[in-house]
């Protein structure tokens, strides 16, 4: 076996060994999923594909056809001082951070500023900001659309976010405005409506 092929096989084996967290898994209707060992529990109202490595600790990404076509980003227990997405360039292009002094009315702005940096959003438009509930807690539902810089595709999104115990909880769905958003957003909003929060037992000393 030639050296490059051996190297490729070894890499594949290493990746396969490390894959449980990286592999896509099926979520069936009615499954209860604890998001990243956090307080958030989602009862799936329909079938989704799920990967447990989201953009930040305690987050997951779900999709139907692939994340470029429909992406459900579920992030729970985001603590004060943490961003909503992974920071690729902390020094030169830091993301805005969640603060526990924020109110629900601050979240549309936090989302937009995060998306402008993290997803290179330009021509960002907030279509609606409405009171909502997430797992029984007061929440805000934001509908938005944007174009990534230099891209021809407009994306539409809807997010339900709440601040529970000083931590940010959000379920966000985003898809191209062309076809996919209109087809799938109701299914995504059903996921948002199926969120509950659990009490994590504190370990005895």
């Amino acid at each position, binding site marked *: 076996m030639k050296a490059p092929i051996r190297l490729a096989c070894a890499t594949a084996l290493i990746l396969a060994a490390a894959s449980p967290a990286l592999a896509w898994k099926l979520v069936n209707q009615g499954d209860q999923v604890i998001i990243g060992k956090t307080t958030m529990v989602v009862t799936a109202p329909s079938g989704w594909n799920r990967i447990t490595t989201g953009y930040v600790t305690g987050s997951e990404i779900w999709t139907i056809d692939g994340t470029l076509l429909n992406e459900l980003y579920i992030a729970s227990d985001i603590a004060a001082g943490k961003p909503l997405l992974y920071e690729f360039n902390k020094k030169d292009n830091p993301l805005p951070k969640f603060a526990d002094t924020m109110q629900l009315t601050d979240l549309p*702005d936090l989302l937009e500023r995060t998306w402008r940096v993290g997803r290179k959003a330009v021509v960002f438009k907030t279509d609606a900001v409405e009171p909502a509930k997430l797992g029984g807690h007061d929440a805000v539902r934001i509908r938005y659309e944007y174009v990534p810089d230099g891209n021809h595709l407009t994306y539409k999104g809807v997010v339900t976010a709440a601040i529970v115990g000083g931590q940010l909880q959000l379920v966000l769905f985003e898809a191209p405005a062309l076809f996919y958003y209109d087809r799938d957003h109701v299914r995504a909003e059903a996921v948002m409506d199926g969120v509950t929060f659990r009490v994590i037992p504190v370990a005895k000393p």
Partner: protein
Amino acid sequence: MRPTCRHCVGVVIAALAVVSPVHSAPAPVPEHVPVTTPVHATPYSPEGAEEQGLWMEVDETERRLKTSPQLISDPALNGYVRSVLCRTVGERQCAAARLYILRTPDANASMAPNRMIQLNSGMLLHLTSEAQLASVLGHEFAHYEHRHALLFFRESKKKNSASLWLAMTGIGLLAAFGIENSLFRYSRDMEREADMDGLRRMAAAGYAQSEAVAPWKLLRAEWDGTAAERKRRSHSISDDKADGTHPSMAERIAYTEAEAAKQAPGAEIGTAPYQAALGRWLPGFLDDQVKRNDFGASDVLIAQLAERTHSPWLLVAHGDLYRTRAQPGDLDKAAGFYGEALAADGDLPLARRGRGLTLLKLGRADEAKADLRAYLARSPDAPDRAMIAMLAGEHP
């Protein structure tokens, strides 16, 4: 205004299809010997396989640009920018240029070899006068007329070929650095030439050359603002090394000011017509800037724009900037900015909204609700109506 990657020859070559940014200035003022010869044939057609190939590439870029969702097609704004271009470069030359204004907060402009000019909304926000716009457009047009993109393409092709051959020898890598440096030196010479050419056009059109340095000084101040906020080294320090595709801002400022000092006083600045043309776009461009998550730069930018112009929208943007940062003392400052904006124009719904949300956090609920109700009354179609109505104690 400046390319993102300054040390990557490959990217520079590609970027040349969309020539380079505008001007910017260390101390000794160089003698400007013409580097290249401009083309004056109108309409000009590309000559030879290289130039035709380059045009073909940028024609494709332009084809995509025509349908970009970022394109600002407002006839009034486009008409105004074109009128300044025509006055600066002449009616005959300007007729062949195609202008595209794009919604993106990066302060940049470029002109491609096929006469396509791209002007970012972020650049328009950084300018305060018609003379400054003329300096940007004049500089970019000089790049086109001197065929800088083609010349740089040929130079880099020649030097990269030599670099590849040298890479096969032991000293290849060292030589590659030298070749890259010489390419950047060549690019800097072309930028200086475009600066001086642009200044000559400004003078011929009756614009005040002294205005050309304002955007460069502003950008340097913004770099320092970003660095102070993030507790980092300012980009101004690395820019002073002048080892990239453009001369340092300090150098450009120095030679431009030396040139402007020779101009007779009384040349046109054109602050009022520029502000009028920017008019309805200013709030949106400011919002794009405030939401870039660069507090230091935005704070400097808004403060300096406010020194030269007096739009209440600058006060609203300043209020938004401090309200969203919300560090100790910021909310009081934000309330002050919104208050000044409303004193200047009592009918600004977004100033009412901003002050209402700020006062709510400051515990002044009654005043906050009054402002939020005033916002709702003035904005029947506000996207956040339901949420604000709940805060104001109203039914949506």
